[in-house]
């Protein structure tokens, strides 16, 4: 298509303007994070990378990050295993009640955490299970498995049936077909799912907030919200903490960008 010079320039202007609008708040918080945390600091110069160390220690982010890593690990590993198994059944086998069961999983993608946290908290409290890592992780596994089942089913349905057929002719059991052929072949789909589930779990707020009332299993975003409540004066340290909390997912995004975008776009597009 032939495009006039003016239009081309206009397009660059639009690209730059919208990039600026998106980046401005991010730059604001990054520059605040490096700014002096107190009047005393301000006399020593305007660039203070040590804010990150101070925030890390005062905000106990080491502990919160460790919890976040543990919770994310549990959620991602369980989600991948469970979704592979269920997606395999829905994608390659035919059985009674298939579509009803599948729709049951599908509605889970839309059920908000708000609809389940209230009874979850009170029931788990009765069982003495609040303030355990499982109370924080398992509800998120349930949420992710709804998406994961749908996502893996789409992958398994896309596999050329003759390949499964051939393996079966060779006498491979369904289990072997899954783990030695389909899973290695489906690495991109599995990676996308892992990346999305990791992001959702790392960023989740309501479930860890409710499920760990004493704060023993406080994840990084919660630690940050708490830090905000305590240090209303120190915006620099707060900003530094915020950057620390956002960093793991943002770094992963820059490395595996295609998986993030593809996952979030295709995950939403129904068949």
């Amino acid at each position, binding site marked *: 298509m032939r495009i006039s010079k003016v239009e081309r320039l206009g397009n660059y202007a639009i690209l730059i303007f919208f990039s600026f609008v998106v980046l401005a*708040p991010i730059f*604001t918080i990054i520059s605040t994070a490096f700014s002096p945390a107190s009047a005393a600091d301000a006399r020593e110069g305007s660039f203070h990378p040590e804010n990150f160390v101070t925030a890390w220690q005062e905000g106990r982010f080491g502990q919160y990050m460790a919890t976040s890593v543990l919770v994310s690990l549990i959620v991602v590993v369980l989600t991948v295993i469970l979704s592979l198994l269920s997606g395999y059944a829905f994608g390659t086998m035919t059985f009674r009640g298939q579509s009803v069961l599948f729709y049951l999983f599908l*509605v889970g993608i839309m059920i*908000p955490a708000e609809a*389940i946290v*209230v009874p979850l908290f*009170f029931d788990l409290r009765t069982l003495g299970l609040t303030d355990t890592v499982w109370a924080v992780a398992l509800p998120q596994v349930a949420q992710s498995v709804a998406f994961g089942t749908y996502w893996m089913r789409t992958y398994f349905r896309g596999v050329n049936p003759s390949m499964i057929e051939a393996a079966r002719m060779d006498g491979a059991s369904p289990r072997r077909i899954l783990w030695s052929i389909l899973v290695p072949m489906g690495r991109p789909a599995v990676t996308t799912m892992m990346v999305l589930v990791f992001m959702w779990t790392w960023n989740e707020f309501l479930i860890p907030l409710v499920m760990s009332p004493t704060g023993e299993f406080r994840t990084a975003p919660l630690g940050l919200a708490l830090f905000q409540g305590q240090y209303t004066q120190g915006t620099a340290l707060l900003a530094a903490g915020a950057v620390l909390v956002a960093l793991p997912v943002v770094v992963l995004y820059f490395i595996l960008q295609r998986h993030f*975008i593809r996952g979030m776009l295709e995950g939403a597009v129904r068949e």
Partner: protein
Amino acid sequence: MQSSPRRSKRELKPPERPGGRSSSRYSARQGRRITPYLYILPAFLVYGVFMLYPLARSVHLSLFDWDGLTLATYVGFDNYVDVLNDERLRAAFGNALTFVFFYAVLPVCIGLVLAAVLTRARVRGLSIFRTIVFLPQVIAMVVVAIAWRQIYAPDGSLNTLLRAIGLGDLARPWLGDYTFSLPAVGIIGTWVSTGLVTVLLMAGMAKIPVEQFEAARLDGAGPVREFFAIILPSVRAEITVALTLTIVASLKTFDLIYVTTRGGPGSSTTVPSYEVYRRAFEQGQVGSAAAVGVTLTVLIFVISLVVNKIGDRSSS
């Protein structure tokens, strides 16, 4: 892939059901009848125990008046009547609809124009642009909220900017203002959603064959006619998806409100999801909280259903 090297084995073990697509799927006759269920069972157990069961319990709890400690009293649908009558809850659902505008409608409008302009003339740097505008989607909402709190603060960058350009009269504590706190928080939602919507729409528009544009231009169509005659009809499916995604996201907004305004000032920025938390864990109105949660869920389902119905109809 054909299995020619394995032909010899195929002769030894003939397929039980010949040919066609269906033979590749394990029918109950071939495998053990329960095999598929065994594969689904682990996922279903976790999903059932931590999702379906609590959802059912929410519905059950919503019929009681319960403070979380003492004995619950059955009150029938009173908690749902409250959703309609209680001023704070009405405000919460009203605000949720305002957020739908800021999270979904506004980003789709901006995204459509933006994506159309960028599709018409493919310039360099589009992939970097995509990376940048998608960024708000991956940043934890708590972090987004803290960043914007600093922008909206009384001595924050927005007010500094206003004073610098001589509009100091407009400067105010944005998040503490009865009139402006709701749109101020809404704008954060627009900031988060617009990139996702734009990338989604650009992907849809990239699929439009170039010949269509060329034919339209030969007919003398300008950018505006091109937009309404070619682009808009081709991305209906993407618009539907974008609306569904962003509307659901807007109705689930909790962390943003929790960190920026806690629903205040007064009830001017409260939303249903925040009311669920407040009622259940701060005010001991567990039944009412459950009712709000159930209502919210129903609302999410109804809105997505309606959006998808309209989307389906207009594309056929």
